[in-house]
């Protein structure tokens, strides 16, 4: 099982519920803006505590309210690519990449820095300050940083949003390659029908 998610979240006044399980390599989470898709990703990553429910990713129970299981974010090993990148502004690209890599157990690493560098074409960016990167570069570095932390599963929040067509296309190709070559389940939040149809083995609709 790639993902098994059944949870309810309280976000201020609003309530968000999600209930799905998927065996696909890449599962897409779709729905209108404000449906709480990002909140579901946050809950899976451990950044938001559900009122109740159960979250399993890549075979590991991350949260279960009936068994009082609630792993800390750092123990969940989510490769979370945030929509806004969230690169550390006081570090170079190289230091950003090394951040999670250093903390990952060596035995669990499944991709090297050279491989990531080649895959995402970021070799030239390593010594740059993150403030000087373009939107597409930020996205690529954020993905690379997540992959190097040896995640057990990936959470991608609208990875192609605000990218031009050519950049978006390149990134989709890359996600396809990660999906087919790596043994990590991917949960993708997307607004684009075409993108979802092309990538996803299973589509989860949120109302």
């Amino acid at each position, binding site marked *: 099982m790639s993902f098994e998610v059944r949870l309810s979240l309280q976000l201020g006044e609003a309530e968000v519920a999600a209930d799905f399980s998927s065996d696909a390599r890449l599962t897409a989470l779709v729905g209108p803006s404000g449906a709480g898709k990002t909140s579901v990703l946050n809950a899976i990553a451990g950044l938001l505590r559900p009122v109740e429910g159960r979250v399993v990713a890549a075979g590991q129970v991350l949260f279960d309210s009936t068994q009082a299981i609630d792993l*800390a*974010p*750092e123990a*969940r090993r989510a490769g979370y690519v945030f929509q806004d990148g969230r690169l550390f502004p006081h570090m170079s690209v190289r230091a950003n990449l090394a*951040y999670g890599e250093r903390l*990952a157990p060596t035995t669990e690493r499944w991709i090297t820095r050279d491989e990531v560098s080649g895959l995402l074409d970021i070799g030239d960016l390593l010594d740059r300050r993150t403030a000087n990167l373009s939107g597409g570069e930020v996205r690529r570095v954020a993905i690379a*940083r997540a992959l190097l932390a040896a995640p057990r599963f990936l959470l991608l929040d609208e990875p192609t949003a605000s990218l031009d067509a050519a950049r978006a296309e390149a990134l989709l190709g890359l996600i396809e390659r990660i999906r087919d070559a790596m043994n990590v389940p991917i949960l993708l939040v997307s607004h684009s029908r075409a993108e979802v149809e092309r990538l996803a083995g299973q589509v989860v609709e949120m109302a």
Partner: protein
Amino acid sequence: MSGWLSAAEWAVIALSLKVSIVAVLASLPAAYALAWLIARRRFPGRMLLDAAVHLPLVLPPVVTGWLLLLAFGRNGPIGRWLEQIFGVTLVFTWLGAALAAAVMALPLMVRAMRLSIEAVDRKLVEAARTLGASPLRAFATITLPLSLPGIAAGAMLGFARSLGEFGATITFAANIEGQTRTLPLAIYTGLQVPGSEGAVARLAIMAIVLSLGALMVSEWLVRRSGGSRAHVL
């Protein structure tokens, strides 16, 4: 320069610098911890803690000095304990002057640090956590370095405030030459003695130079971090 100021005047300046530097360095960790608590934690009594930290800013300094006397005096609960366990006396010593300066500087230091901690995007801390960092590591690698300009600015402001401390110091630590007679106290003392106008003027000029220097350094640190002055004060 050394001919311009008498040996006694140099001693006053040296004592002032010692008192202020010790006051700032000793209260820095506490100030940062308080700033972090107020900026990042939600707990019952948070408002009260915030108010208590700011109290020396609005209270008459004499009252702060009197409160210190009650708590840290020879017969005060903390003062008696310090004397019995460590043999340390604060009243009428330069350490007491440093304590008074630290308490008076604390609100300014906490304020600057708190604002710089609040300016650190929590989302970056979350990102660090998902990458495998424990809360402590995320703090040490993200929050702390990103709030460094606020720490430096807060320290400089606290230093300037300590340098000028008068009311709480004279109340708690008294005005003892070589022990607690810092710059402002020496100027005040000079004003009471006929014929020391020259000494008063020289010490006042030194006070202006030192304070201006501290303010400029803090301003520069804030500018360098991209913040505005309103950010800190």
